[in-house]
Every structure is written in structure tokens, then in C-alpha cells.
């Protein structure tokens, strides 16, 4: 009996630490595979050169255009997912009746379960031609379409975390506000939103981190031209789609291969920073509301 318990304890300890092992393994791999590039190409050159011609002779590994494209598309996605995501969280939590809530919440969560390649398909076959005709663009495969689709994809993340944040605001806050004569709108704007503010910020940061890491959709709809983005109506090439498009053809162990790992490392550091920021903000939020942790 005692031994059995010990075995179980061991098994679960191993399982518990398994993800740590994977995380460490991935970090080590990313550094190990991107290091050779830093030895041959100046890091300043990598970050600030805008020419990405990895298979040309001599190759150019400037990542500035790719990096800015990722930021550009994610910023566009933010403009879509913040109003939609936070708006629907507010509606679900503050205004919807129990029956609407019972329908809306699961429906928004279904949005999250659609595979990203299906979103990409939708963007390519429906959204891109539609926007192209509507706005008379030379091509519908551009930053605008990518931002739109990414924004919609990030809505479930933002909505469900923002909704959680709203439900953490104690009822006593609302009651106090009503008690001093504030109406529903005043309570919402002056009391609930500020109280849940950092929770909503966490939702937005995580939504952004989801958008910047998304691969399949941007590969299919962003167009893929490695230029510094200046307008939403031009094709761009974000970091994720560069890795996805080129990994299959890169010669293993070549500089190009190392460069793709370097992009992966950059992406990892960016989403890592986002997640840390989200964690810090959410911790402050919990303290503010007097919750534990």
C-alpha cells in the first residue's frame, strides 16, 4: 500500500515536471540552432536590415520587415478584437439575461474551437475577394484581411478572460454605486470597468499574444511580401508565416535554417514578454480587488 502510494506520487511528479522539460528543451533548441547565425551575421544587421532574401546568393537575413509586419498585423487585429471582445464581455456580463448568456457564451467559445486553417480558408476564399472588390484594392491578400481575421480569432480569448475579470468585481462594489444614486451606465463606466480594468488589460495582452503567434491564417491571407509595412492595403510577411513557408525547403544546418530558428527565438521572446506582462497586470488586479494571491 505504502509502495503503491509512492509510485503514484512519483508518476504524477514526473507528469507535473514534464512540461518544464519540454519548455527547457525548446528554449535550448532555439538558442542552439540560432547561435550559428549570430556568429556569422552581425546581430544589428539582422535586426535592422530590411532585406530578406534567404536563398539568394549571397543571402540576406534582414528581419526588420518581418518583425514590423508581425507588429503591424497584430496591431490591426487589436483594433478588431478589443471592441468586439471587450464589448461582448460587457454585454454578456452586465446586460444579457440568463438565457442569452447561456447561448452567447458557448457560442463565442465555439469560435475558439475552429481550426486556424479554416479561418485562413475563409479569409482566402471569402474575405480577401470581398475586400478587394469593396475597396478596389490591387489584391485582397494584404495586412487588412490578415488583421481582420486574426482579430476575429482573438475575440474568444479576450471575451472569456475579460468576462472572468468582470465577474471578479464583487457585487458590493455595484451595490455601493447604486446606493449613492448612480444609474446602470454610470456604474458600468465609473465603477465596474475601472475595477476590472487590469483584468481586461490582461485579456487584451493575451489576445495580442495569440494574434502575433498565429501562423496558418497569416500564411494564407497576408500575401507574404517581405516589405516594411506602410499601409494596411499592402501585402506583408509576418515572422510566423516566414517560418512556416520556408522551413520545409531550408537545407538542414544551413544559415537559412539557423535564421528561421532565430525568428522562432524572437517570436518566443515576444510572446514570453506578453505573457509576463499579462501575469503582472493580473496580479495587480487581484490585489486591488482584495482577492488572494
Amino acid at each position, binding site marked *: 500500500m505504502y509502495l503503491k502510494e509512492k*509510485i503514484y506520487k512519483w508518476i504524477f511528479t514526473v507528469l507535473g515536471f514534464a512540461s518544464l522539460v519540454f519548455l527547457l528543451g525548446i528554449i535550448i533548441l532555439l538558442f542552439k540552432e540560432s547561435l550559428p547565425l549570430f556568429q556569422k551575421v552581425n546581430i544589428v544587421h539582422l535586426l535592422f536590415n530590411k532585406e530578406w532574401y534567404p536563398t539568394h546568393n549571397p543571402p540576406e537575413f534582414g528581419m526588420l520587415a518581418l518583425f514590423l509586419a508581425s507588429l503591424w498585423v497584430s496591431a490591426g487585429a487589436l483594433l478588431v478584437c478589443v471592441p468586439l471582445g471587450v464589448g461582448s464581455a460587457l454585454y454578456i456580463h452586465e446586460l444579457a439575461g440568463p438565457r442569452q448568456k447561456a447561448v452567447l457564451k458557448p457560442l463565442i467559445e465555439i469560435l475558439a474551437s475552429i481550426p486556424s486553417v479554416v479561418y485562413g480558408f475563409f479569409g482566402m476564399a471569402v474575405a480577401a475577394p470581398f475586400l478587394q472588390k469593396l475597396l478596389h484594392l*490591387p*489584391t485582397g491578400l494584404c495586412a487588412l484581411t490578415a488583421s481582420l481575421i486574426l482579430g476575429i480569432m482573438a475575440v474568444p480569448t479576450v471575451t472569456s478572460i475579460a468576462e472572468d475579470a468582470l465577474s471578479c468585481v464583487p457585487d458590493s462594489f455595484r451595490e455601493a454605486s447604486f446606493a449613492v444614486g448612480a444609474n446602470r451606465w454610470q456604474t458600468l463606466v465609473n465603477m465596474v470597468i475601472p475595477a476590472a480594468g487590469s483584468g481586461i488589460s490582461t485579456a487584451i495582452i493575451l489576445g495580442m499574444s495569440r494574434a502575433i503567434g498565429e501562423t496558418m491564417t497569416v*500564411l494564407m491571407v497576408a500575401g507574404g*511580401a517581405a516589405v516594411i509595412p506602410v499601409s494596411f492595403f499592402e501585402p506583408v510577411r509576418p515572422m510566423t508565416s516566414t517560418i512556416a513557408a*520556408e522551413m*520545409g525547403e531550408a537545407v538542414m544546418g544551413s544559415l537559412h535554417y539557423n535564421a528561421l530558428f532565430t525568428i522562432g527565438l524572437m517570436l518566443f521572446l515576444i510572446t514570453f514578454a506578453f505573457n509576463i506582462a499579462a501575469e503582472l497586470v493580473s496580479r495587480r488586479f487581484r490585489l486591488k480587488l482584495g482577492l488572494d494571491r
Partner: protein
Amino acid sequence: MKSIYGLTIAAILALGTAVPCYAERIVCEGSTTVLPIAQRCAEEYMNKHQGADISVRGGGSGVGITSLIEGTCDIADSSRAIKDEEIDKAVTRGRDPKANMVAMDGIAIIINPSNSIDGLTKKQLKGIYTGRISSWSQLGGSGDKIVVVSRDSASGTYEAFGEMALDKQKVRSDALMEASNQAVATTVAQTPGAIGYVGLAYIGKGVKAIGLDNVVASKETVLTKQYSLSRPLFMYTNGKPAGLVKDFLDFVISPEGQKLVDEEGYVAIK
């Protein structure tokens, strides 16, 4: 505790070695351009030879050749010739890649059917793709901006196109980069001002193949080498093919295999 780990490892090892080997099994991996040929031939071959097991995967020319060097595949499909650095790598691993040509392919220049242009010179094509020409009016068409569509910079088709059509110059950086032949065709079909390049098999509804120096890409013009953007497709093997690998490759280049190549939209070499 130790005995449990030991047992687990032993069990895994036992499972690994206990998989029965009923027949010879080969793995064929690489270029997505060659994939339809490999797949179709493997199906037909396995129908005829019970017990032969050929598994076919895509991944890209680079992946195929890497696998061949690493020894994880027996046949590497490639839409480009092996590179010097890959040969160096193979030599250090004691492998000896041998090229086996299995078909020819032409890279067709396609535009949207609404475009009135029906031919370009090689110089004009190069101008469009390197950035000197940006509007159809410079070529005698209507004044739209040219939407230049290219394959991704790592694809074998891109490299072949760059070598044959652009004299190794860079493709303009604002060109759309698509991940597959089909994606290029779809974009060109949807975009009035677009120009793109695809393998012969992908000329279909919704796009117009135009002449290059007055020669339109077709099986005939590729075979007679009149069309300048033609390239061979390879299946690389480690050393001289032997056993099932040899038998399969013989089938691919046999009249029967070449008929399948033709049916898939590529140019048979025999």
C-alpha cells in the same frame, strides 16, 4: 523504483523490435511538385506488387534531400538539382546522393483572363519580377498596377524560376509570396492585375497561360526545349538504386509509369 523504469524501457525496446517485417518497405519524401507523380506511381506499383510498401510524403525538396542524407528516407523527390552544400554534408555522413530524372516540368507564366496581354518577352518578364516594370500600361495593356505573385523564396520552383527567368537576380520585395502552386493560381484567378508562375499541371480554369518570346508553355514545347522555362524533376537515391528502390524507379521511368506522369500533367521523358 529503478526496476520500474528498467521495465518500461525494456517494454518500449521490445515493442520497437517486435514489429514484424512482412515485406520490404521504402520511404519516398520531398518536393511537393514531384509529390503527385510519386504518389500515383506508388499506388499503381503497390497494386501490382503485393507486399511492397512504399510510403510517400511531401515536405519540400530541401526536406527530402535532408532526409536522404540523414538516412530517414530511401528516395528524395526534388524539383531542383542537389546543392553543393548538401553534397558536402552527404559526403561527411558517408552518403552518396545519385540523381534519377523522372519527368520534365515547365514553369508557365499565367495572368488573369480579363487581361488583354497575351505574350511577353523574357526581358519584360524579368523587368516585371525584378521591379523595373510596375504597370501594365508600360507593356501596352490597360493602366492597372501589376500584382506580382511569386512562390515562396525557399521553394524549388522559386529557385528554378529565379535561375532561368531572372538570371539569379532578386525578386522584387513587394511581390506576393504564396506557399503552393495552387495558391498562386487561385490568387491570379481572383486578381485582375496579377501575374504569376506555376507548374504545367496547374494551368486551369480562371487563369490564362501567356507566351514567352512567342512560345506558350505546353507539354510539346517543354519536351522539344522550345520553351525556355523547363526543368527536370528528380528522385534522388543513396548510391546506385538497388532492390525495391531500383524496381520502383524502373517502374516510374517505364512506359507505364511515364503514362501516369503524363496523366498527372507533367511531361514524360520517354
